[in-house]
């Protein structure tokens, strides 16, 4: 059940981040500057609009336009990182006609690596990476096993939830939260929460596609 047209995915992402707007604002507000809900909602709305304006195009082209739109609309840390993720992911599936589990695995591996390179954070630094890495790992394992996209993404969501839960025990090393040090312990990472929302939306889009 691979997807060729990603427009429904971006519709769903925009809706999801709009719904979680206040939740992300509150979370980022505890050890940050409260902008995450706003920037994510803005960024994914812009991505949806860019992809829909693009019309029929390859999955890679759609992801690329989405990434550029997010970076432009949301010039915050997470906006830049999410934009980077989509741009790098797009390159990893450049020649793909449609997106199946193998492409999802390649996409999220490049997504994670791009963000790691751009942000220079390490695993365990309490960032979005600590949620993206389990997502990418789960998809890679499922792709190797030949699992279909929907159940593969279901596993990825579980892995993301797990990863996010584990960020509670960590102390932030980057961005505005780093200034709060020990105060950040006990809270899930805000960027990681955004990554979980991302994975959930992917899953829902592929589930809907059947």
């Amino acid at each position, binding site marked *: 059940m691979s997807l060729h047209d990603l427009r429904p995915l971006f519709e769903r992402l925009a809706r999801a981040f709009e719904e979680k707007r206040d939740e992300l604002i509150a979370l980022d507000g505890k050890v940050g500057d409260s902008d995450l809900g706003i920037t994510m909602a803005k960024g994914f709305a812009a991505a949806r609009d860019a992809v829909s304006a693009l019309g029929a195009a390859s999955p890679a082209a759609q992801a*690329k336009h989405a990434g*550029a739109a997010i*970076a*432009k*609309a949301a*010039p915050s*840390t997470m906006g*830049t*990182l999410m*934009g*980077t993720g989509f*741009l790098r992911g797009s390159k990893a599936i450049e020649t793909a006609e449609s997106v199946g589990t193998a492409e999802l695995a390649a996409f999220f591996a490049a997504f994670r690596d791009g963000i790691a390179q*751009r*942000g*220079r954070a390490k695993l365990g630094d309490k960032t979005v990476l600590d949620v993206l890495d389990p997502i990418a790992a789960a998809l890679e394992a499922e792709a190797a096993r030949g699992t279909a996209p929907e159940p593969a993404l279901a596993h990825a969501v579980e892995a993301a939830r797990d990863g996010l839960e584990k960020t509670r025990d960590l102390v932030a090393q*980057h961005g505005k939260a780093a200034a709060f040090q020990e105060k950040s312990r006990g809270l899930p990472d805000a960027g990681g929460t955004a990554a979980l929302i991302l994975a959930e939306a992917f899953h829902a889009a592929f589930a809907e596609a059947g």
Partner: protein
Amino acid sequence: MKKFLNRPEDFVDEMLEGIYRAHPQVTKTADDLRCYVTAHPRPGKVGIVTGGGSGHLPLFLGYVGENMLDGAAVGGVFQSPSSDQILEVTKYVEQGAGVLYIYGNYTGDIMNFDMAGELAEMEDIAVRTVIGNDDVASSIVGEEHKRRGVAGIFFLYKAAGAAAAQMMPLDEVARIAEKARANTRTMGVALSPCIVPEVGKPGFEIGADEMEIGMGIHGEPGISRSKLAPADAVVDQMLDRIFAEESFGAGDAVAVLVNGLGATPLEELYILFRRVSQRFEEAGAAVRNVWLGEFATSMEMAGASISVLRLDAELEPLIAASADTPFFKHVAR
């Protein structure tokens, strides 16, 4: 907080408004005050873009002008500009020969310039990057890639700007900038903190009779805090550190920049330079170009930095070339 300002949150944009009103040679692009570009881009020339946080005037935008840079993306005080702003500046200065990014080694800036470069490449603009990392106090030898970029970036601008004005191709201009980077070393010393307008109070303290050698231009910790020493001794401490990495002797030639961090009077910079000049004289090396004044500041921070660029036959004429920006003028002789 004793500053001339209206609302702290308008500090950067009102400053920019003042600059545009004062200097018609520069303008904004993308209808964004913070996308600062030359009003006279030169067709066929490699465009050079810089950017970074505000609060360091004349850095960064001050070097946009003839024979130097073509654009600067302007961030909030001590904050990176956005990748989108960098991209807009990039698109404006692209004149068919590609674009070189030169900026300082700070995470936020790297993230946003990399992102902008990636977006620009997608629009078929060739982009190269050289990251200033001249602050020898900020990491040991072998870890130079972790060093902060401070006032020495001026030499990168000067050399690359002159190379681009000679219509060299992108890879050549990047090579020149990289050569200037590899040969520039800076040591700084801070005497007092500065105040970010939206914060309203100093982010750190320095005791009434103390100095901090190696402190960063945002107040990053230095390598030693001690009692303020006589000017000659301060210079010796700073130069010893540079000379430990790069030795200068007979036949060597350098350019020197003695930079005030903000509140330190020009008189004192000349007292510092007197000793710098003596030291190179003693070493037998020639100081070919000298600039003194405020080139990279931290608003009202008191202190100074000394940057040294080792010259060779290629860099020397580029460093000595004329330049004319609203904030920096040099007349070749």
